[in-house]
């Protein structure tokens, strides 16, 4: 357990040092990378011990905070998330050094380094926290560090707006968590997690309250629909390495919290479990549908994060269904699917955000329609993007497939009785989500990397430095390795799922063998197919080399003056799918068609606002403003009268209660 403390301390010290040594850019860079490496080694060693079944004693010390002890502990669930934090965060941090250097001062180095390391430290502390107060301290530190990262480039008004929205949302979430822990603490008589687990069951009404509070509190961070409103604003606003860490790990901490609570309090009821599944599916469908229509690639990735959170939540809900129906094997399958997908999402989503950052720096815009043809100028970045995009679409032999496959396997199990019809429906919805993901990411990859450059900047794009490519390559390699050899990742996911479902190790490992054998075969088959295609392609190339085959321009259907703007655009590519969902998407279009025989001007613009943020929220806010117009009169801005309110209240309370 000292190792976890060492990791947190290494990150914290590196944060302070990097901020104070900002004048010596090189030293600060070494400190950041050294801190991340030290934390990765310490945390990795600890996670290794835990996952391989060695006992790790809890770290309990008296604390200065009244009514609390400093209690750190670690189990497989914590170890799994700790690994994810350290791997994804480590890669993003190293990449960030290159990103900051290449931004030529656009990304302010001090806050970008400091808050990033604080974010990492707080997340490492969060997974080890075993008392509610320590958990909240880590949670809030994480939230504030992320706020610092989101508002890094606060010179831009949209960044300030996104930062404020994020701060508001995270505070609402934290408020719910405070209420949640207060409820649990009152029942247990202590704010220790072990006391929560040992406490008598809550009455039904309070159980519901706990469920709702946890869902809102953790869901605000994770981005369950319709609590996702900050996500698609904040991710594009943050520097790319920060959005990679936020999207790859931070939002998943919401799911960690949910699963930790499940591990402490035991199963939820069947209706609640079904609600979780439904919420997960709605979130997934919503997220991917809005991802398809985005033009800003970081915003597209943010919506896709919402989709993946939906898939993970579906897995958690399925695990809860398994627990509620008393089937440990189903519970294990659902939770391990969720956790495996969490790991995978952390890897490929951070990879995609990192390559988005590289493309953004090369082209100078996040607009998909200003890119194009980058495959020629940035082959490495585009190749790694392709791997990430294929992984996120869930194509074998990459890792995205493994987690989703476990969830599908749950849904298509023959032994789930009369719930089968709904399960088949859910499987169909997940299938649709997968298909939409292919649309979204073939658009994202195809429009940026393939075709002809749409702008001068895209034509002159340069490959980023090795310090940025290295971490991306590492993440891509991990995606491929988990896809081809899923057994170690499955082992980790099952061990963590065993914690959530409160199962003993023998029960976990018996389920594990079956699934890792099956998935291993799928991974090898997929790898075989890929290897065979590569072989055939290189064979063809070598045979054609002597024939003098040349690549010409794309046939333009006989049109005499083609331009690069006549390619598929971000709006036109997904139209076959989006047309079906016009009512749901409510895309706003501004069309000025060409008029007359000799049209001078014509234009088309489309925009798809987020419904929760721009349609539903204003209605709610207007309602609240109506209700609050009367008490608002008390807010007149006279400081002295405000103080009078306070003191009058104080005196009345004192006279009344004493």
């Amino acid at each position, binding site marked *: 357990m000292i190792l976890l403390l060492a990791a947190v301390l290494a990150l914290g010290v590196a944060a302070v040092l990097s901020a104070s040594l900002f004048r010596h850019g090189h030293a600060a860079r070494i400190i950041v990378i050294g801190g991340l490496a030290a934390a990765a080694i310490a945390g990795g060693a600890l996670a290794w011990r835990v996952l391989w079944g060695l006992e790790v004693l809890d770290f309990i010390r008296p604390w200065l905070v009244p009514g609390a002890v400093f209690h750190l502990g670690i189990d497989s669930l914590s170890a799994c998330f700790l690994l994810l934090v350290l791997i994804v965060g480590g890669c993003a941090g190293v990449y960030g050094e290159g990103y900051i250097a290449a931004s030529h001062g656009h990304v302010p180095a001090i806050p970008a380094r400091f808050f990033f390391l604080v974010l990492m430290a707080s997340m490492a502390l969060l997974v080890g926290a075993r008392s509610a107060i320590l958990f909240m301290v880590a949670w809030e530190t994480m939230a504030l560090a992320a706020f610092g990262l989101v508002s890094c480039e606060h010179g831009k008004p949209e960044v300030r707006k996104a930062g404020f929205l994020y701060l508001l949302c995270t505070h609402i979430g934290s408020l719910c968590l405070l209420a949640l822990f207060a409820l649990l603490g009152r029942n247990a008589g202590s704010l220790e997690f072990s006391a929560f687990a040992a406490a008598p069951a809550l009455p039904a009404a309070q159980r519901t309250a706990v469920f709702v509070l946890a869902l809102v509190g953790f869901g605000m961070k994770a981005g369950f629909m319709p609590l996702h409103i900050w996500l698609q604003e904040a991710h594009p606003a943050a520097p790319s390495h920060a959005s990679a860490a936020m999207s790859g790990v931070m939002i998943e901490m919401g799911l960690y919290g949910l699963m930790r609570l499940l591990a402490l309090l035991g199963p939820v009821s069947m209706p609640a479990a079904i609600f979780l599944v439904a919420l997960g599916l709605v979130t997934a469908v919503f997220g991917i549908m809005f991802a398809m229509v985005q033009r800003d690639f970081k915003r597209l990735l943010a919506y896709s994060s919402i989709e993946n959170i939906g898939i993970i939540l579906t897995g958690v809900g399925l695990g809860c269904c398994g627990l509620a129906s008393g089937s440990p094997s189903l519970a294990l399958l659902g939770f391990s699917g969720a956790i495996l997908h969490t790991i995978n999402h952390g890897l490929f989503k951070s990879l995609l955000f990192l390559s988005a950052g590289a493309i953004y720096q090369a082209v100078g815009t996040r607009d998909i329609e200003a890119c194009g043809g980058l495959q020629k100028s940035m082959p490495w970045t585009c190749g790694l993007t392709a791997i990430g995009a294929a992984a996120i679409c869930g194509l074998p032999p990459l890792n995205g497939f493994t987690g989703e496959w476990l969830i599908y396997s749950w849904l298509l199990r023959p032994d789930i009785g009369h719930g089968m019809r709904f399960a088949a429906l859910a499987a169909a919805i997940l299938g649709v989500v997968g298909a939409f993901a292919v649309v979204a990411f073939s658009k994202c990859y195809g429009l940026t990397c393939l075709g002809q450059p749409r702008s001068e900047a895209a034509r002159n794009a340069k490959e980023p430095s090795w310090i940025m490519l290295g971490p991306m390559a590492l993440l891509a390699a991990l995606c491929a390795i988990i896809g081809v050899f899923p057994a170690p990742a499955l082992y980790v996911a099952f061990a963590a799922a065993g914690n959530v479902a409160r199962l003993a190790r023998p029960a976990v490992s018996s389920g594990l063998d079956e699934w890792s054998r099956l998935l291993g075969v799928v991974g090898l088959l997929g790898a075989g197919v890929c290897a065979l295609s590569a072989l055939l392609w290189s064979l063809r190339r070598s045979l054609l080399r002597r024939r003098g085959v040349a690549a010409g321009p794309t046939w333009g259907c006989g049109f005499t003056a083609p331009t690069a703007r006549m390619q598929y655009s971000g709006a036109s590519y997904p139209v076959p799918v989006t047309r079906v969902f016009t009512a749901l998407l409510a895309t706003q279009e501004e069309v000025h068609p060409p008029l007359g025989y000799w049209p001078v001007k014509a234009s088309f613009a489309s925009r798809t606002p987020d419904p929760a943020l721009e349609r539903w929220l204003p209605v709610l806010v207007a309602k609240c403003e109506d209700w609050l117009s009367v008490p608002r009169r008390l807010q007149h801005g006279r400081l*002295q009268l405000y103080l009078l309110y306070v003191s009058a209240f104080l005196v009345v309370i*004192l006279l009344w209660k004493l």
Partner: protein
Amino acid sequence: MEQLSQLLLAFIVFLSLYLLGSSSLTGCIKIVALQGMCLGLLPLTIHSLGFHPRALLLAAGMFILKGFVIPRVLLYAIREVKIRREMEPMIGYTLSLLFGAILIGVSFVLAERLPVPPGLRTNLLIPVSLATVMMGMLMMISRIKAVTQVIGYLVFENGIYLFGLAISYEIPWLIEMGVLLDVFVAVFVMGIIINHIALAFDSISTEKLTRLSD
């Protein structure tokens, strides 16, 4: 020792009353500094068990911070904005004094109903702390200039500190440190803000701040 602590407490109330009736800002700051010094001495005399070594440290910190550092910051602030007197209090000086006297009475009534913590040499501590809190409040409510409000806040804070002293054997170290740090930061920030208010509104009257409400 008992007489000494009683004397200090009485002196603290007297200083608070003096503040309520005084219009000179420099004078007010000096009085608050004096009150802070009295507060610094108090932990050494108040407990029947004598004092903890820790109390010595606290007393020294209190003495330096409230007796020297904070008044210095405030004096700097009023020198920067060039004002000497609180001209237009919302409640006049005589009336303020009258209110102050009433508040002292009320706090004695309230304190009678409060249990006295064991181990104290004097039963005057609780009523004095309540009275100081209330007079600080009164000052914040009835004065207009930002500097006088800061002084009111300091008096208010002194009252809270006195209250904390009553149970200081049980209060964790962290909270004492927290309070001290709080005050220091608050005054520091306010000292800066006063300058900014003066720059932005050409006056340090907080009445002008109503313009900021939406």
